[in-house]
């Protein structure tokens, strides 16, 4: 599992991904970790196949008892099917996920971990020394869907929004936006169901100060590419399967 530090301040953001041991047929994912002095949040910790490399990587930064928070942007297996294993590994953890998905996510096994249901309008994740915002992104693509915004680090973790499918071991940041567009187009047109939801999200996100847009698949967007992405996504017709 490759680890890339994307923010360093009083705490750190680390992107984990491009795992070279990943079985070929499962989709490649990016996981994110926010590490403070004594706590650790894992954002979209990943599928069951990724659990071992993921935890092994996290153990370079934090002991299990300090992994106190998990966040699931939505209910997909590539996001959180590892829940049942985290549930056995983490003695003091909470899972922040949509209230709507609770009855579904519990199928993965959630007995030790406390399920903190997020209401539709979002909320915050308090990590003691810092606080992150939970931003609604419903219908993008799941009916209950959230992103994480960190106003200090200026990072928006955007779940499947901004995702791209490409060959393994690609760089972690977009280098040429125009060339990157083709790797995102079909994914967004097919997976995102609603132009209305897309517009609402863009309006909301345009008000945020963002340095890095960090999706769950593919490459992150930095600096001007964030605005380029928002403009491109705004113009894109989605929900094309009907």
């Amino acid at each position: 599992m490759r680890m890339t530090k994307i923010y360093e301040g009083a705490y750190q953001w680390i992107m984990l991904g491009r795992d070279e041991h990943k079985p070929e047929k499962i989709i490649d994912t990016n996981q994110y970790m926010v590490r403070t002095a004594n706590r650790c949040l894992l954002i979209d910790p990943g599928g069951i196949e990724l659990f071992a490399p993921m935890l092994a990587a996290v153990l370079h930064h934090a002991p299990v008892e300090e992994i106190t928070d998990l966040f699931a942007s939505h209910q997909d297996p590539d996001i959180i099917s590892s829940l049942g294993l985290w549930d056995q590994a983490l003695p003091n953890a909470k899972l922040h996920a949509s209230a709507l998905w609770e009855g579904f996510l519990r199928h993965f096994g959630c007995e030790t971990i406390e399920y903190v249901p997020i209401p539709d309008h979002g909320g915050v994740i308090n990590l003691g020394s810092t606080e992150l915002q939970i931003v609604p992104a419903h219908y993008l693509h799941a009916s209950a869907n959230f992103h994480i915004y960190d106003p200090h680090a200026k990072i928006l973790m955007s779940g499947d929004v901004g995702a791209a499918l490409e060959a393994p071991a690609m760089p972690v940041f977009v280098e040429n936006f125009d060339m990157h567009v083709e790797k995102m187009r079909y994914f967004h047109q097919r997976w995102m169901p609603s132009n209305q939801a897309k517009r609402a999200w863009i309006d909301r996100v345009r008000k945020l100060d963002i340095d890095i847009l960090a999706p769950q698949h593919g490459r992150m967007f930095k600096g001007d590419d964030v605005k380029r992405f928002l403009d491109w996504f705004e113009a894109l017709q989605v929900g094309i399967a009907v």
Partner: protein
Amino acid sequence: MQVNQTKSQFVAVASIAAELSAVMEVAKEISLAAANAKAIAFRAGEKAKGFQPITDFINELAKDTIELVNNINEYAFHLYRLTVNEQRMTEACRRFEKVGQLAVGARYADSLNAPLQQVRQRNQVCHREFIIQVSELLIKLADVMHPARAARVIAANSRIEASQAGEYLQSLQAVAESVDNAAQIINDKVHKCRSALTIINVAE
């Protein structure tokens, strides 16, 4: 090995559940046959006098079997829950050990030791409980054999009584026949349950 073991437990528990619901169906058939026999014996009056108490007895046996099976179903469900838990713990052990291999040299690798120990322990507790429940279930299954065996004896008696019943001979013999068949089927099903459970014990 451990993974295959929980797999065979799932199969065993599922086949027990299937056999038990078949036993339930057959027990209901017996109780229907008893009601039927009662009606015939009533019509036959004096000629089937000896047959009447037998019909009540058959009915009792059917009721006992249904009750026992209901009780056993709870055990089977408990076994299923235990198997699910054990499977989860086994899977967790396997994945945690994998983490241990991958995390060699990681600063906090040792912090996983406590959860790993805990999962191993829980796994053992689950498995021990499973074994206990299986042996209790085997005893309960032996209990179901009793009414089935008694039913066969009664069926034999019924045949004798039926021979006194003149023109009702055939219908009463048919009743005796169906009780005998049903008891035989219950016997077979319960045997299947027992051998499914024994396979697990052997896998131990």
